[in-house]
């Protein structure tokens, strides 16, 4: 799967990367793995939303090979 991060999360994680996920892993599992790798993510846990293939999704959604997962901090447009 491919991971996309934006704004302050992009600054921590880079804009995009390819990530291998275990069978049955969820978006939440992916986030946990990222936090282990980059502990500063912890403080953004509450405000971050997830999208799978361009649609908002919950942390319980399973990640499949070929998915695009986006990490979305609180919005600031306008």
């Amino acid at each position, binding site marked *: 799967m491919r991971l996309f991060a934006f*704004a302050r999360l992009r600054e921590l994680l880079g804009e995009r990367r390819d990530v291998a996920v275990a069978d049955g892993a969820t978006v939440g599992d992916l986030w946990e793995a990222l936090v282990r790798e980059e502990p500063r993510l912890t403080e953004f846990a509450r405000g971050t939303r997830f*999208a799978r293939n*361009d649609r908002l999704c919950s942390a319980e959604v399973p990640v499949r090979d070929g998915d695009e997962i986006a990490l979305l901090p609180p*919005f*600031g447009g306008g």
Partner: protein
Amino acid sequence: MICEIVREAIDVRAIEASVLAPSCGGIVSFCGVVRERADDGREVEGLYYEAHEGMARASFMAIAEEVRATMPEVRLAIVHRVGALSIGEVAVAVVAAAPHRAEAFAAARFAIDALKERSPIWKQERYCDGERVWVENRCSGERQ
């Protein structure tokens, strides 16, 4: 319905021209403009916007669809710019034209409020002292 994320200066006049139809008696344009001070008074050098472009465009289209459902006579455009912007430049333009002004005002106001709440766009304030801060919208929708 024009729903776009752009990287260059927003041509509000061109948007208005394409939104206006002979059936329209009123047109309301809202432009969000980069201002020289942040809400806390700090001097701003400029803003930097980024977007999840596909999702942002989709959110604009959903907003336009909601407007169409409640006010079918309204013609609407939502355009947001991304990248680095200077003081006085237009970051976002919402244009609504309708047979009567009440709908044009209501549609423009709804669209910009909904955009600020729902569209995956991020803003970084770049201060004159060199600091850069990602700024979140308040959900109240009362602030620029």
